């Protein structure tokens, strides 16, 4: 295709279509009439109808889009890295942490600290464990390096509290023993989001 059509900037020779615009009122009375006409024509309700339709769908047809936070929360991705959790062994209920200290070593914010000791059963016992959440950057290396899948990132992203210390100790992070049946495995970095299948769309190859 040649470019003549574009290079021709002579208006008179081109096939323009003129818009059928109303005459702009010039007299004051005409201007007043136009305002009244536009105000009461009902276009207001054209827009409001959209809202009303959504309201009706939400209230009566069960198609509510808003999430009633904090009573209701959206499921978060398993890859999400929130406050750490310490998991237990499902069989015995004993905590999984063996006190190897790898999380402490790998922590790039240097915020994990632990004390260990030789316990009565000749095992290494974690006598104290803490994460300084003022420094933690939630990089997830600790969960990545943990050989026992003991320290994981949980889904608790609401970090506001009177004291940070209230969720930084081992006992705070450990799965409560009576909630052992609810304990979730951490899927980790490569995990897919839940219902990922539902969100799959065909790759638009049509064009």
């Amino acid at each position, binding site marked *: 295709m040649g470019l003549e059509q574009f290079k021709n900037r002579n208006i008179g020779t081109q096939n323009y279509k003129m818009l059928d615009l109303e005459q702009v009122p010039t007299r004051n009375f005409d201007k007043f009439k136009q305002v009244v006409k536009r105000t009461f024509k009902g276009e207001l309700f054209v827009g409001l109808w959209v809202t009303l339709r959504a309201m009706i769908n939400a209230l009566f047809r069960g198609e509510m889009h808003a999430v009633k936070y904090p009573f209701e929360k959206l499921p978060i991705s398993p890859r999400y890295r929130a406050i750490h959790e310490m998991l237990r062994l499902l069989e015995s209920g004993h905590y999984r942490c063996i006190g190897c200290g790898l999380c402490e*070593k790998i922590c790039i914010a240097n915020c994990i600290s632990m004390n260990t000791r030789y316990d009565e059963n000749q095992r*290494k016992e974690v006598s104290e*464990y803490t994460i300084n959440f003022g420094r933690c950057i939630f990089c997830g290396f600790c969960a990545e390096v943990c050989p026992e899948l003991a320290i994981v990132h949980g889904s608790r992203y609401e970090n506001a509290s009177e004291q940070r210390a209230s969720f930084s100790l081992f006992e705070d992070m450990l799965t409560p023993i009576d909630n052992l049946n609810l304990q979730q495995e951490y899927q980790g970095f490569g995990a897919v989001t839940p219902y990922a299948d539902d969100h799959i769309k065909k790759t638009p190859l049509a064009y």
Partner: protein
Amino acid sequence: MSDEKTVENLITITIDGKEYKAKEGEYILNAARANNVFIPAICYLTRCSPTLACRLCLVEADGKQVYACNAKVKEGLDIVTQTPNILEERRAIMEVYDVNHPLQCGVCDKSGECELQNYTLEMGVDAQHYMITDTKRETANWSSVLHYDAALCIVCERCTTVCKDMIGDAALTTVKRGGADLDKAYKDTMPKDAYAMWNKLQKSVIAPSNGTGHTNCSDCGECIAVCPVGALTSRDFVYSSNAWELKRIPAVSAHSSDGFQIYYEVKPTSIEDRSEKIYRVTNEWNYVSLDGSARFAYDFENRDAKKDKEAFKKALDAFKKAKTIRFNSVITNEEALMLQTLKEKMGIKLYNPEVRAFQKFLSFYAKASGRSLYSADTDTILKKSDFVISVGLALRNDSPGLKYAFNNVQKLNKGAGLYFHPVGDTLIPTFGKSVECFTHKAGLEEAALYLILDLFADKEKLPEEVRAYIDSFKRMTKKTVKEKVMKEVVEITVDEETGESKEVKKKVPEEIEKEIEVEQNGLVELLGKESDAFADTFDKMTSKKETFSLMVGEDFYYHPKAENLAKLVALIEKTCHMNVVIAPPKSNALGVALICDLDDKAEGYTIGYNENGDFRISALGDGDLDMPALNQQEGTLTNMSKRVVPTNAALEYGGYELNDVIRELIGAPKETVEWTVKLPVSKGFKAVEFDTLPNEYKNDGSENRGYLLDIVMAETPMPKVEKFNEAEVLEGEIAYRCNPGRQFSDFTDKAHEIFEPFALYASRAKAESLGEKVEVVFENGSIVLDVIADDKILGDIVKVPDFKSAQNVYELFGDSRYQNVTIRKV
């Protein structure tokens, strides 16, 4: 003599095509290490005899496979460290070591410093071809400090080797563990050495050699240091920290006068308390072996000291009115110099009963010999001597370094040894077959030195009257001995075939009784041995011996005849071709003796530095003004090897230092270490800045720490020695001032891993006769002590420790280490 540097015979060897220099007669492995060539080896320890347990050090020398730890270099030897066959062997060996080795590396105390892990990766073990049923192996606590996890043990025998060859306790051995038998098929399919190694490994495990499950050793913890895996650990350290969390601070052991190089390993105390704490002490175990005090007495710091201005002001007032400062040897050279400066500028007397006697002895010795300091050190004894003599030294208690040297000479140099001491010992005779122990009466130390002169002196050099005096002890006795003589017999035989008779000469052995004249040495008898028997054993002991060393110790310094003893030592050094080491009593005694002009008596208002006094400045935390302990300050110490070695602060200290006091009183530099450069050059020190002092061992094992003291030598005539008086021998109940193995001072006592109590130590028989608690009455006081039986003591002399300065044991004993006492049951 050790002063002249012996020129080592260097030869040329080839390793993997490159030429290197090596010392003649050295093992290939050591030669390679000295030249920074890597040959893998697990079981070999540099200063011990080859164990040949791991077989990893297999190399090819002149085309023949040998073990590098066991084969010596010779001129032109061509060594190849890797051939396909050797690599196959090594890989198989590492695979075998990994068979059934627990995989809980995450909680192992070795935490990544594991030689098993390293070599497994080095040999590229990525698959396991061998397997066998595992046996359950239990953990055990062998002593108050040793923890053994048999499951982790790879039976490299480094612990048993170091305990036998270096420490001398021989408290560990390999025992059968009843493992399953190897599959016979492996014998044909496996590399040869790997199979042999596995066969042994599968059957054995380490256990205390006395069969009781408890080591009853000196608790030095050297076995912990050498363990390549996490099998042996200190009970206190088990699972308390990963190695990588610990910061290593090079320092000097603070208690014995050996001045070993150590590393304090520190990390924060706990999550709540972020101030640092020493978790353990480690060492360069290939080059230096620690004693129990160096390894376990580490937490003697003065914690939580604050700058108390009130106390500081009071201290200044106290110093201003003080007439005497009483201190001991647990201070740095710099502090000693500060005190000496104080003496010079303010006229305060320096009183140090621990060091004064040693200092006097050194000056007697220097005057008699013309040398400002003794000639030998532990290192030269370890490496060169093949005959060692110890007199006046409670070897097991006074000087662990010399004990190791004494023992190591027996084991490694095929040496021999004489041990003279009034307190009998069961351990020292076990050091070697050629160790003779004289358990003589207290007071006969001079006789022992005369005997040494008799046995070793170049009689030509010896002064006439000394020779005559020694000869006066000898007498000839007649003795009948049975002797085998070959007698010539002439026999007449008749040849059966020809009928000719022939005269045949034959030699037939015959026993005849013969009366011979035997020289009886009265000195030997005086010292409690049979003269004849000793003469025979002595001949065997001295055969093929070339380098002789003499160690003398604290008994000589606290002795009524100290001056004569010093002269005798000097005479021995001059006439016997013998290296002499005069063991400083404790810690930095040598430094203090060289730097300070000590006084004989304390008088007037006394300031006690870690000692009793009217005003006490103390690093023990119980004084009127806090001072930093030796693990909290920088500075130098002078060790037994005449080396000025730097030590560093492992822990924080918040209070005032001695330097602050001195600065207020007479002016001083800002930092304590600025005194280092001012140490008296006239006494052999060098004007070297603290920060430039090196502190390392090199790959070939040579020590590059600090600097050696200069020794001034002058020509002196032969020292005039006095005769000794047999009548001065102590009889009756005798107490000996001597500390239990790991105790040296209040600082060792403060450490939580040192358990030896302040008590009376006696042989088992004696302890049983004494009961549980006794009062020991001296001429000028008495002390009440619990009685503890020590199986390693023989005889009736009891040991009274002096490590608690508050008990003032030095004053009870006065100027002798042996005292007649009355012991009453309480």
